[in-house]
């Protein structure tokens, strides 16, 4: 178990970090070759766009889809914070490196985990029910949704000791590693591309075309 934790944590975080760095370096080079991208980038208008698209209901399309927007915000908030602030993770980190950081109480984490699970269920149903989404959904999309939710499902089962703890923990660690590893290599990479694609479009609208993009 000890070994599995070490190997998986290194593997997951290592691939995530190296993968993201590699992708960004590649994009930097490719953007320089493309030539027309970098001159357009503007800090002011890029940030203006990011702020609008990161605040809920501040863009017209978010207002046209209030439910999707709110679910998505809660989902992302819990998804990003829960793994960072759960006592189990911080404890493992402290054992290894000798320092840690404050955590949220377990019941709060449980609620956040449930939020993520419900949100994924919502995304799943939306993919099945809305024709414009189903039309662009393939096995990859379903698979990624499963990968995204798996550490949360196994995490909460482990925490509540619903099934054999050791088995569930192994599943948790394996699925968590997969989660981390797939971020740079699937559309989960929207996590970091978001900041670049959005600020590029914001720059082009704002700095070049004198218009707003939200």
């Amino acid at each position: 178990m000890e070994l599995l934790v070490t190997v998986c944590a290194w593997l997951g975080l290592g691939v995530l970090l190296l993968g993201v760095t590699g992708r960004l370096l590649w994009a930097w080079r490719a953007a320089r070759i493309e030539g027309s991208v970098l001159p357009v980038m503007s800090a002011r208008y890029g940030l203006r766009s990011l702020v609008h698209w990161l605040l809920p209901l501040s863009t017209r399309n978010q207002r046209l889809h209030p439910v999707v927007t709110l679910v998505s915000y809660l989902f992302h908030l819990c998804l990003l914070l829960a793994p960072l602030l759960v006592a189990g993770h911080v404890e493992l980190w402290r054992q290894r490196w000798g320092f840690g950081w404050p955590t949220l109480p377990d019941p709060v984490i449980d609620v956040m985990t449930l939020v993520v699970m419900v949100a994924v269920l919502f995304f799943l149903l939306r993919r099945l029910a809305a024709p414009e989404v189903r039309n662009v959904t393939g096995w990859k999309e379903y698979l990624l949704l499963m990968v995204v939710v798996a550490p949360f499902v196994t995490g909460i089962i482990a925490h509540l000791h619903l099934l054999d703890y050791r088995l569930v923990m192994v599943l948790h660690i394996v699925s968590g590693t997969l989660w981390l590893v797939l971020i740079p290599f699937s559309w989960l990479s929207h996590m970091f591309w978001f900041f670049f694609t959005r600020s590029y479009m914001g720059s082009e609208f704002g700095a070049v075309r004198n218009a707003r993009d939200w």
Partner: protein
Amino acid sequence: MADIEDARVEDAGIDQAVDKLEPARIEAVIRRVLGAGCGARLKVYLQTCVHCGLCADACHTYLSRDRDPDFAPVAKVKETIWEMVKRQGRVSPEFIKKCARIAYTECGACRRCSMYCPFGIDIAYLIMLVRRICALLGVVPVYLQDTVNSHAATSNQMWVQPDDWIDTLIWQEEDAADELEGVRIPLDREGADIMYSVIAPEPKILAQLIANMAVIMKVAGVDWTMPSLDGWDNSNMAMYSGDFEVMGRVERLHWERALQLKVKRVVMGECGHAYRGAVYDGPKWLGWSKPPIPMVHAVEFYYELLREGRIKIARKIKEPVTVQDPCNIVRGRGLHHKLRYIINELCEDFRDVSPRFEHNYCCAAGGGVINCGPPWKLSRLKSNRVKAEQLAATDAHLVVTPCHNCHSGIEDIIGYYGLGMHVTFINELLVKCMDRGDGSGEVER
């Protein structure tokens, strides 16, 4: 489902070219276009898209066709460039035929969807890559290709011959002088403050617009000129067919003409495409960071004249009026407030549209769609029911459309959906409303 009627449309420019395609050539062209030069944006966009369908509500074609999922922006990309990338260019001639239909007739590159996608993915850019591939394969709707051929041969869009051009200007000068004494259309006057650019439909079918402008220039006391030689038209349909070589040639000639005349500014007539080509796409292709001489669109120009009091309004239009925000000067230049300032100066009863400004619905004619000609007209009209509903909701009689494509597109929509409205350029309203300083002017409407 794609519309059966659209899939059945016969277009020699597409059908005959597709019959001659060989898979090896398709593969080579796709690899070339999707290779080096567009690595960053293309690949990042493809990786980023989470297939969430949130861009669907942006597209007038999707909204107009009862939310048919095949008309969602992301679906247009899925059906074309995703496949090309996934199959590394190994696609069939039939596939290219479908790509041409989608890229040329079902997307007007209006870029509304990049304001609806949370990531700002530029679907129009991806669709333009598809058009580029189709153009290099020679698969282009026949009417659109004809305008490109005209650009290549005459440098204008409608086969206007050099003597016709000069004749038309002289004839319009005479007409204008009948309306207001002393009006001139100064040709090739070096060092003038302004060169006025028009697009080929003006001399060809709407020559009156040139006379109107001459009257406006006279009243405002502007030092202006028009070129007598090629380079006067930069409407540039090659920009939309994907023939960027010809596009670049047209833009270069246009700017060279302006440089030769040593003018201080170029005023672009009421056309969105031409403005886009001259200010953005042309310079970008030619490797210039910006146009060599500042260009202002007619809307900016009229705004200046009215703001500075160089033109005074003697009487206002009484009929209810609404507006079509042209994509290329609104999303493309942010001129919507100036446009409304002008309309409010000229009209008593302005009824704004909703959604408006950057969120306007495209006219469905722009981006080369109307230039695909009669075979695709029904498809185009079906693709813009939302525009008809939007206009009808204003109960206006007159639609101000400061763009040639919007003008024709909206006119068609008004006819097809029986809206009983009329379209007008600002230019036509200005000559009716302005104080000519000689006590004349037309009777009130």
